[in-house]
C-alpha cells in the first residue's frame, strides 16, 4: 500500500521565485531566505518521494471570479506553468499522477469532502515556488505532483478544523492505494503577512512561532482557531496558514502512532511583504 512518509510546510512568496529566476540568490537579502532551505534540498535528494501531494492556493490565475472551488484536486497528466502577468516562470511543467489523484478524489469524496475535480489547470507561484525552494532549478521536477488548490482568496475560506479533517481523509485515501508509493504531503502559504490596505506589511513573529510550536505538538487544538484570529493576528493573507493543517492532518500521529520527527525548522522575516516559515516533519517508523 502507499503511505505518507513526511510533510513539508513552506511559505510560497512570489518574490522568492523571481529572485531565483533572475539569479539574485547570492544577494545578502535573499541569502538569508535561501540559507534556510539548504538542508531541505539535501534532505529531498536523500529522501526522494514517488509523488508529492501539494496543497497550495491559486492567486487569481487558474481561477478568476467565474468559478471559485473551495477544494480542487488536479487529476490531469500535466499542468502548465501560469503566466501571472509577468510571463510564466522559467521552470519545468508539472507532471501529475492521474491514477493516484483519481483514487484520492474517489476516496475523499466518499468520505464526505466534496472536492472539485480539475482536468485542466495552470499552476501558479503558490505551487512552483515551494518546488523551486526544495528542488532547486532542475530540467524536470524530480517526481509527479498532485496539485490541490484551496480557496483562500474569497472569504469565507474553509475552517482550520475542516482542513485538518480533510488531511485525515487524504491519508486514508493514500493508504488504500495498492501501489507501494512513498507520498509526501506539502502545505504551503503564510506565514503572517498582509498585502492590502493601510495595514499592509503586518508581521507577527511571536504568533508565527507559536503557530509552528502548536502545529508540531498539538495540531488538533490548533485546528480550532477561528478565522478572525488569523486575520487579526497574522494579517489578511496570513489566513493561508489553514492549508498547513491539511498536511498536518495527514500525519500518522493524528489518530494513532508516534509523534512525527521534526527534521528541520526555519523562520525568517522578511521575503518581500511576508514572514517565511518552513518545517519538515517525518512520520516515525
Amino acid at each position, binding site marked *: 500500500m502507499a503511505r505518507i512518509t513526511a510533510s513539508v510546510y513552506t511559505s510560497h512568496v512570489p*518574490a522568492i521565485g523571481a529572485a531565483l529566476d533572475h539569479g539574485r540568490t547570492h544577494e545578502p537579502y535573499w541569502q538569508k531566505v535561501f540559507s534556510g532551505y539548504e538542508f531541505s534540498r539535501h534532505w529531498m535528494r536523500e529522501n526522494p518521494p514517488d509523488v508529492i501531494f501539494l496543497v497550495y492556493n491559486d492567486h487569481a490565475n487558474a481561477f478568476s471570479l467565474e468559478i471559485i472551488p473551495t477544494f480542487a484536486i488536479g487529476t490531469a497528466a500535466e499542468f502548465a506553468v501560469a503566466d*501571472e*502577468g509577468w510571463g510564466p516562470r522559467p521552470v519545468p511543467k508539472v507532471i501529475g499522477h492521474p491514477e493516484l489523484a483519481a483514487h484520492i478524489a474517489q476516496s475523499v469524496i466518499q468520505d464526505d469532502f466534496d472536492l472539485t475535480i480539475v482536468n485542466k489547470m495552470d499552476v501558479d507561484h503558490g505551487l512552483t515556488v515551494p518546488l523551486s525552494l526544495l528542488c532547486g532549478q532542475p530540467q524536470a521536477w524530480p517526481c509527479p505532483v498532485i496539485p490541490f488548490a484551496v480557496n483562500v482568496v474569497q472569504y469565507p475560506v474553509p475552517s482550520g478544523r475542516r482542513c485538518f479533517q480533510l488531511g485525515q481523509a487524504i491519508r486514508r485515501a493514500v493508504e488504500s492505494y495498492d501501489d507501494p508509493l512513498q507520498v509526501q504531503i506539502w502545505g504551503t502559504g503564510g506565514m503572517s503577512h498582509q*498585502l*492590502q490596505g493601510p495595514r*499592509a506589511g503586518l*508581521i507577527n513573529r511571536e*504568533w508565527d512561532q507559536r503557530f509552528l510550536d502548536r502545529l508540531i505538538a498539538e495540531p488538533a487544538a490548533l485546528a480550532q482557531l477561528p478565522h478572525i484570529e488569523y486575520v487579526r493576528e497574522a494579517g*489578511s493573507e496570513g489566513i493561508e496558514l489553514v492549508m498547513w493543517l491539511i498536511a498536518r492532518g495527514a500525519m500518522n500521529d493524528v489518530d494513532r502512532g508516534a509523534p512525527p520527527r521534526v527534521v528541520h525548522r526555519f523562520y525568517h522575516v522578511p521575503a518581500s511583504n511576508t*514572514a517565511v516559515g518552513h518545517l519538515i516533519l517525518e512520520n516515525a517508523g
Partner: protein
Amino acid sequence: MALDKPYRDVPGTTIFDAEESRKGYWLNQFCMSLMKAANRERFKAGERAYLDEWPMTEAQKQAVLARDLNRCIALGGNIYFLAKIGATDGKSFQQMAGSMTGLSEEEYRRMMVGGGRPIEGNRYRHEWEKK
C-alpha cells in the same frame, strides 16, 4: 439575521467576502484580462477606451486610472486581481503593497527589513481612531 463579520473591526483591512466580490466582479474580471500579453498592450495603448469595454462603474474606472489601490479595494477589488495592473505597469508586489500604506517605497521597504509592521496597536479599529 445578519451574518457575523467580526473582521470589520480590524483596522486598515478589507476582507474580500462574497459581498465585496459581488461589488467588484467586473473590476476584478477586467484585471484578469491583463494576464494576456495582447490585452496588456491594448490597455497601455488606450486605458480609458479599454476600461470602457467593461461594465464597471465610473468610480471603479477612475480608481484604476489613478492607480489608487485603496479606492479599488473599497469598490470591490481584490489584491490578487489588482496585482495584474501592477504587473502591467512593471511594479513589484512590494511596491503595490507599499503604495496603500501612506509610506514611501523606501520607507515601506525599510519597515519590512526591520521586521514589518508590528502587531501592537494594529489589532482593532479603536486603536487607530485614538491616533
